[in-house]
């Protein structure tokens, strides 16, 4: 079994998503599960941008913010269905990423980091300051997606958290499928090539600027959809979704789990989403322990949790 091969990854994911609920003692676990899937989706986008193409963004929460607020505002101002608002948000994020990406992606390393950071902060600031439209820092209510009502009419009664577990789980599987498709496709190969050596990629004909932009746009759409799902599930959203800390959280999840592989990054999302829930037993020591865990993982498992563990196991077997 090769880590990261497309069908294995999808199978593992699907099995976990389907089997896990049999062990859930209460519907709170469904809620945590769906948060993992939502974060996992955003992080899968990061895998495309950072893991494949080697570009670091510290502003992707900005796109999550656009997606989230599209779901809050489009139904109110455009009168569209919240589900359609998700798509509007994704298109808008893609378009903005296309416009912003071209100049930003000329920058390298930390300079790209600070430029994307600036973009994210501008989005968060707009959402905070334009209170007449966005509801300001205290947040805004989001319309009901209406699926539960629809199911009830059809005679199925499901709990909100369970429904969202299924919805977000499906979205994650689709996202993972897309990212894995991309990995072995010509585009994915070109992205990984420019990650390995930008100059060599250029000499074999890779239009580096265009490909980076494609990766940026795709990952922006992933982040946007993840933001939309969060807004629709919570039926309430605040500008924190676009904040700097959320951007850093996305990158941390991906890197901690292993940014090179979709499964690794999603694993990272799962760890960092559940950790604060588990760490509540440490009460005020929670943050100290969280920081310590992050450091220890990166010191001793530098390629990320999953790839390092896989290597370790492989080493044992041989």
């Amino acid at each position: 079994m090769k880590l990261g091969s497309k069908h294995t990854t999808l199978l593992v994911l699907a099995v976990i998503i389907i089997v896990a609920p049999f062990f859930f003692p209460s519907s709170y676990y469904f809620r945590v599960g769906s948060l993992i899937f939502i974060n996992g989706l955003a992080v899968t986008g990061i895998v495309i941008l950072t893991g494949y193409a080697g570009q670091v963004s510290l502003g992707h929460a900005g796109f999550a913010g656009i997606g989230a607020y599209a779901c809050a505002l489009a139904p109110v101002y455009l009168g569209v269905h919240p589900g359609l608002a998700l798509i509007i948000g994704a298109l808008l994020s893609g378009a903005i990423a296309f416009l912003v990406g071209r100049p930003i992606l000329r920058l390298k390393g930390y300079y790209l980091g600070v430029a994307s950071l600036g973009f994210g902060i501008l989005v968060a600031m707009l959402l905070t300051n334009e209170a007449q439209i966005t509801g300001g820092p205290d947040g805004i209510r989001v319309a009901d997606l209406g699926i539960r009502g629809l199911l009830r009419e059809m005679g199925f009664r499901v709990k909100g958290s369970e429904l969202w577990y299924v919805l977000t789980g499906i979205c994650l599987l689709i996202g993972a499928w897309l990212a894995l498709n991309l990995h072995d496709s010509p585009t994915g190969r070109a992205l990984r090539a420019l990650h390995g050596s930008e100059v060599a990629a250029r000499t074999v004909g890779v239009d580096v600027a265009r490909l980076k932009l494609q990766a940026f746009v795709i990952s922006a759409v992933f982040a946007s959809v993840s933001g939309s799902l969060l807004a629709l599930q919570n039926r309430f959203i605040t500008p924190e979704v676009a904040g700097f800390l959320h951007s850093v959280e996305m990158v941390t999840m991906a890197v901690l789990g292993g940014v090179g592989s979709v499964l690794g990054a999603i694993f990272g999302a799962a760890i960092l989403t559940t950790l604060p829930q588990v760490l509540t037993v440490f009460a005020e020591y929670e943050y100290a322990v969280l920081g310590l865990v992050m450091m220890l993982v990166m010191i001793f498992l530098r390629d990320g949790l999953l790839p390092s563990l896989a290597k370790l196991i492989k080493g044992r077997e041989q």
Partner: protein
Amino acid sequence: MPELMQFLLSGLTVGAVYALVALGFTIIYNASDVVNFAQGEFVMLGGMITVFAYGAGAPLPLAAAVAILTTVFVGVALNKLAIEPARGAPVVSLIIITIGASILIRGVTQIVFDKQIHRFPAFTGDAPIPFFGATLLPQSLWVVGGALTVFVGLYLFFTKTLTGKAVLATANNRLAAQLVGINTGWVMTLSFGLSAAIGALAGVLVTPITLTSYDVGIGLALKGFAAAMLGGMGNPKGALVGGLLLGVIEAMTAGYLSSQYKDAAAFVVILAVLFAMPQGLFGAKSTERV
């Protein structure tokens, strides 16, 4: 006219705060190519430890000295216990380590001290000094003076001393540095210690103005990072100019345009500068070597 002067003084004061944080970034970056996101926590520690040492009865200079020494210890420990064992890891992993360290330091601080906001008295009183129709606080002079002193010190250190050159050499090519007899391990320890000391000194200087609490580090690190990038990472001149410029832009925007969007203006300027000069204002232009 007095308004303009007031905006300028405000901008320079705040800018000097950013510059001090940005200067702290340059040393570790120069030695290891790592942007240490725990730099803001050094500033926080400098302020918080001084607050509590002072509160426990120590005279202010002693409290400040205790704070700076403790922070240096933390910085060196960070290098020895986390950065050194992770040598060879990808830069992005090293960044996550420093982010983890910053969370850890914050977490420990809130347990050891508390979660309240604190300050200690300004060094030389609070009587405003009139200046061309505007006023400024004596502590602002301390902050601006501190930033300039640290800048000159670092500039001399990197250009005039053998040790400073060793730091730069280590950044350039670790292996080559080792071959010419530079103890690169010691260079790293020195860099973290020095960086922590500058951070803590910044904390001591700015706390009477900005106040402090266990969680001020993130905000400061963010602005300091932005300032350092604006100026060009790794260059003390860039850190100083970037910091002051950022502060002045914010103050001018708040004064003349909109106080709501002053942070936005700062980042718009950063983006504009980077598009024109991808290495920041004073960053070294690198030619691709293939």
